[in-house]
């Protein structure tokens, strides 16, 4: 199994190496190299998955390690851990990545940097798979940074466009803030426990090596990394801008896999979260879920709506991990990866069609703009049908995968609130259910304005065509993976994942914090859980239905004019439309502040540091000149006299050495004698 995992991991790296060096010269610009590498990885992942099913054991895990860095007491082994969590995650990553590779062959066809695009995709796949496979935080941190770099490169893929280049930088810098926290958390763990390895950390926390406030701090700081990567409030600002990258990239990196890395990390580390740390995680997640959802309502760019929706859904997952619903959080990661990748690829299909139509008409408008679409249902039947399935899944409608996972999360938050004595924690389920309603609303707003009704611009509509096979087949595959049955087998119950394979295989790891404290960090009894689950189902179906109805009411039946509504609550509308002015606030405070600080440092650098550097350079120069002169004048002068040397070498200054071997030997002898004399004095 380990060999298989290594092949899965390293094949994309091989593809990257081939692509970046010789990709341009290969037939078809080498896209087949990347596609077949990830294709083989995908098939091997299926084989791992089958092996996992054969074992069908929640505790299933295979590990292997080899030494990497070893100096005295400091050792970091290279280790891989294959457990159910890792295998399912491998499956998600390779599936989406493979489909996106295939899709990109159609979407990116004819691009100037076609081979470079595939090279980056391969590098990303390698980094992401590594992140999943490593059994220690150090390795994860390395891969964490690598996926960050790939994300930067791919967001700025159209680097000639200023907005794309800036979005890349913004993503990278915003992530650095979170990663700094991650690094400090990592160092706290290492200094107290002495290892990066997950099982060693588990033991260390259980035995109390890391406890109390420091444990909470480590948990929160490690979570800071996840806040950056999974675009949680207040570091969410980069993800919507990241939509400047090519749409397949948005699907792969900024919807399905990389942004889920934060959730994956928290799932891996959930055993070491103290109660306080869990509260921080839950509230940040819950707030992000509702906050981002309210922004998504008013956006007009089809990809931006989806981006805010992603932020919001990631908030759900994080919230689930915060309230201790481990399975639910990871489950939503998996289901969301499928339908959200599908939504992005579907939107890509629409944008592709819009782009070609506008190209024909020589229009220079935004192909992403919702307001120019409408009625595409008949022109793009496959895109429409699959898009609808994804939307139903995301809205949490029964019989689709999203319902199962979202319901599990909402049930989890309810159970958490009910088991706590503090009524304020009911805020979390309130956040969750409200966000669920808003989600259903904005998603149907999107579907109705894109696919239903009369075409807003008939001339564009005329030239809309269904996308090629490379693009529609991945959509169909993802649509199939958004049906509830995929996750509930062997049970056929559409209302819950209980009894299904996923529920069986992914179980909450034993909390090391509980072991350390001697009692459960979080105790939720069975009855509360059951009650919460039942009420969760009912409420979530109600709110989702309400959201959809509202959307149809406003946008399909046009019972109310949406511009009038917006007018009547103008301040709120503007707040949402301008994303709560977060970019402006950050610009005014952090960016400005940083620039001022920068100016100060610049002054310091120019006046003081440079002075010191110049001084030391002068000193070095003088010193080396002196040592040169010493050799030249004293040593040589002793023997032959300066004149002799200069006559032998016209440019004597350049030569430190006289070139005369008798001088050399004399030098060596004198040196020996000097050493002896100096040492003996």
């Amino acid at each position, binding site marked *: 199994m380990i060999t298989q995992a290594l092949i899965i991991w390293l094949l994309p790296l091989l593809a990257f190496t081939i692509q970046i060096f010789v990709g341009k010269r290969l037939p078809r610009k080498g896209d087949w190299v990347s596609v077949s590498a990830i294709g083989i990885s995908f098939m091997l992942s299926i084989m791992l998955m089958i092996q996992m099913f054969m074992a069908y054991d929640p505790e299933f895990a295979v590990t292997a390690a080899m030494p990497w860095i070893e100096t005295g007491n400091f050792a970091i082994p290279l280790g891989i851990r294959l457990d159910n969590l890792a295998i399912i995650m491998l499956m998600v990553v390779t599936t989406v990545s493979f489909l996106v590779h295939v899709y990109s062959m159609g979407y990116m066809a004819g691009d100037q940097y076609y081979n470079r695009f595939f090279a980056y995709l391969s590098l990303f796949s390698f980094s992401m798979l590594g992140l999943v496979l490593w059994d220690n935080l150090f390795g994860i941190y390395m891969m964490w940074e690598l996926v960050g770099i790939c994300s930067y490169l791919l967001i700025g893929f159209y680097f000639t466009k200023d907005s794309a280049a800036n979005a890349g930088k913004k993503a990278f810098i915003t992530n650095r803030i979170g990663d700094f926290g991650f690094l400090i958390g990592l160092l706290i763990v290492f200094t107290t426990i002495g290892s990066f390895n997950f099982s060693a950390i588990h033991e260390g926390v259980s035995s109390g090596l890391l406890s109390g406030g420091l444990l909470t701090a480590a948990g929160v700081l490690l979570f800071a990394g996840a806040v950056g990567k999974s675009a949680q409030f207040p570091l969410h600002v980069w993800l919507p801008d990241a939509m400047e990258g090519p749409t397949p990239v948005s699907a792969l990196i900024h919807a399905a896999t990389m942004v889920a890395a934060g959730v994956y990390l928290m799932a891996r580390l959930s055993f070491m979260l103290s109660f306080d740390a869990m509260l921080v995680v839950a509230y940040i997640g819950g707030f992000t879920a509702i906050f981002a959802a309210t922004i998504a309502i008013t956006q007009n760019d089809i990809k931006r709506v989806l981006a805010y929706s992603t932020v919001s859904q990631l908030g759900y997952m994080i919230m689930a991990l915060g309230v201790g619903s481990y399975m639910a959080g990871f489950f939503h990661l998996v289901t969301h990866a499928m339908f959200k990748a599908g939504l992005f690829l579907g939107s890509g299909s629409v944008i592709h069609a819009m782009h070609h139509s506008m190209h024909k008409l020589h229009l220079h408008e935004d192909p992403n703009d919702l307001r120019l679409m409408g009625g595409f249902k008949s022109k793009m039947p496959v895109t429409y049908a699959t898009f609808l399935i994804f939307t139903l899944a995301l809205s949490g409608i029964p019989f689709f995968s999203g319902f199962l996972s979202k319901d599990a999360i909402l049930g989890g938050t309810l159970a958490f609130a009910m088991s706590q004595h503090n009524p304020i924690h009911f805020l979390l389920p309130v956040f969750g259910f409200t966000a669920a309603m808003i989600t259903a609303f904005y998603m149907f707003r999107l579907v109705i304005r894109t696919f239903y009704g009369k075409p807003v611009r008939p001339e564009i509509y005329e030239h809309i065509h269904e996308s090629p096979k490379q693009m529609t087949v991945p959509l169909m595959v993802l649509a199939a993976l958004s049906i509830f049955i995929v996750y509930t087998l062997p049970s056929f119950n559409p209302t819950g994942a209980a009894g299904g394979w996923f529920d069986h295989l992914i179980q909450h790891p034993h909390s090391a914090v509980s072991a350390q404290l001697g009692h459960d960090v979080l105790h939720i009894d069975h009855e509360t859980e059951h009650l919460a689950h039942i009420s969760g189902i009912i409420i979530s179906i109600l709110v989702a239905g309400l959201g959809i109805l509202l959307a149809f009411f406003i946008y399909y039946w046009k019972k109310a004019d949406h511009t009038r509504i917006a007018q009547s609550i103008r301040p709120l509308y503007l707040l949402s439309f301008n994303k709560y002015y977060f970019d402006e606030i950050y610009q005014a405070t952090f960016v400005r502040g940083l620039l001022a600080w920068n100016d100060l440092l610049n002054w310091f650098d120019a006046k003081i540091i440079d002075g010191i550097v110049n001084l030391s350079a002068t000193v070095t120069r003088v010193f080396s000149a002196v040592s040169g002169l010493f050799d030249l004048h004293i040593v040589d002068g002793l023997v032959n006299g300066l004149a002799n040397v200069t006559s032998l070498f016209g440019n004597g200054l350049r030569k430190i050495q006289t070139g005369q*071997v008798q001088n*050399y030997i004399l030098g060596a002898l004198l040196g020996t004698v000097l050493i002896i004399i100096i040492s003996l004095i």
Partner: protein
Amino acid sequence: MNNLESLQFFIPELFLTAGLLVTIIVELLLKKEQKVFTAYLAATVLLITIFFLIRQYAIEPAALFGGMVVIDPMAVFFKILTAVSTLIIVFFSIPSFRVKAEYYVLLLATTLGMMLMAQVNDLLMIILAMELVGLVSYVLAGYRRSDPKSGEASLKYILFGAASTGIMAFGFSYIYGLTGQTNLFEIQQALQSTQHNPVILFVAFVLIIAGLGYKIAMVPFHFWLPDVYEGAPTPVTAFFSVGPKAAGMAVLIRFIISIVAGVSADGQTFTANAPIHAQELLAVLAVLTMTLGNLSALQQKNIKRMMAYSSIAHAGYMLMALAVFTSQSVEAVMFYLVVYMFMNFGAFWVIHRMTPHLGSEEITAYTGLGYRAPLVAVAMGVFMFSLTGLPPLAGFIGKFYLFAAVIKAEWYILAVLGVLNSVVSLYYYAYVTKVMFLNRGDDESAVSISSYDTALLLVFLIPTLVLGVYWVPVISWATQSLHFFLG
């Protein structure tokens, strides 16, 4: 062990000698255009020798030929290292020495000498082995007979070498006079059992260090090096910069663990034989060596000369680690030699293959090379930065281990001086990279290189990159080899 019994542990050396003789005879039978065949024959001989050497790890440490040489894992390590470096040099030399077949015979002879240096255990044997390497090296340095610079280099090398050997032999005579022994372990026992005059011992020590210092280019016994490196044909220069230096290090280590200090069986603790401040002396010489190497390299305009001073500086770094006398430091030096082999050969390979294209060995001739031959220039940049010791390249890991050993032994000032030296070296290494990439020259025509050149370039480039991120096999090889025969 008597001579006859010893022969079974001497298979690699015997095979190499036989291979050398066969190569001479075969060379006589070949027509001029076939002479390149000797290179391949020499490479095969070396490969098989290496194969025999690897098998020697299984042998229990023992003294051979009545105590003249020893066989232990450390000897095997250095024998393999020198044989591998010669093997690489054979391929390095093929483009320039296609018809001069006896050149390869000389390389094999030097290898035999270096392998003997790796396992010496007797004062006489030290001189014999070092002279074998030395005499052949003089011929190699002067191999380009038509070039007066090459002849000059050879002559300087001979004279300086002869003087150094003389100094060293003088030192040996003191030791012999004090103890009446030539075998290193007998000497050690004699030194440990009776008190000797520390002044005379110290003088003897300095004299011997002078002789060994000449081989590894320690200040102030380095004078020959820049001229010889510049004058000798580039493949020979590359050869000198690694193999003989490693062999010299091996002798120095032997010398330290027997005459200067005693070492415990596990190689962990060193105890001085006599109160003669040998460590302090080595530390001072190490600092002088790297400082002079680096400061002089700063001023060089000729890239081969710059590399010559750079190799002095690197000898200084290794000496710095050796001065602290711990098993870690010996291990670090062994590791560094492996790393140094790849990055230094790489840099010399680029210089060697680019000189005909650029028409000069001046650093300014490399201006704009990044646009003319991107792969070569990138590789050169990697070698330069690796020599500086920047992560994530092999040179960084090598230096890391050197400095770690020094810091672990709590010689902080020495470590700081070493780091400062590394900083200085960044200037001249980075300068080469700068002219290649940031400046554009007048000539912008692409430089095409053959696939042979590229292949050998990758042989140097890939380890330099890979050992920067995954070096455990090499360090554990060094650790396993850290096992001495202790009499």
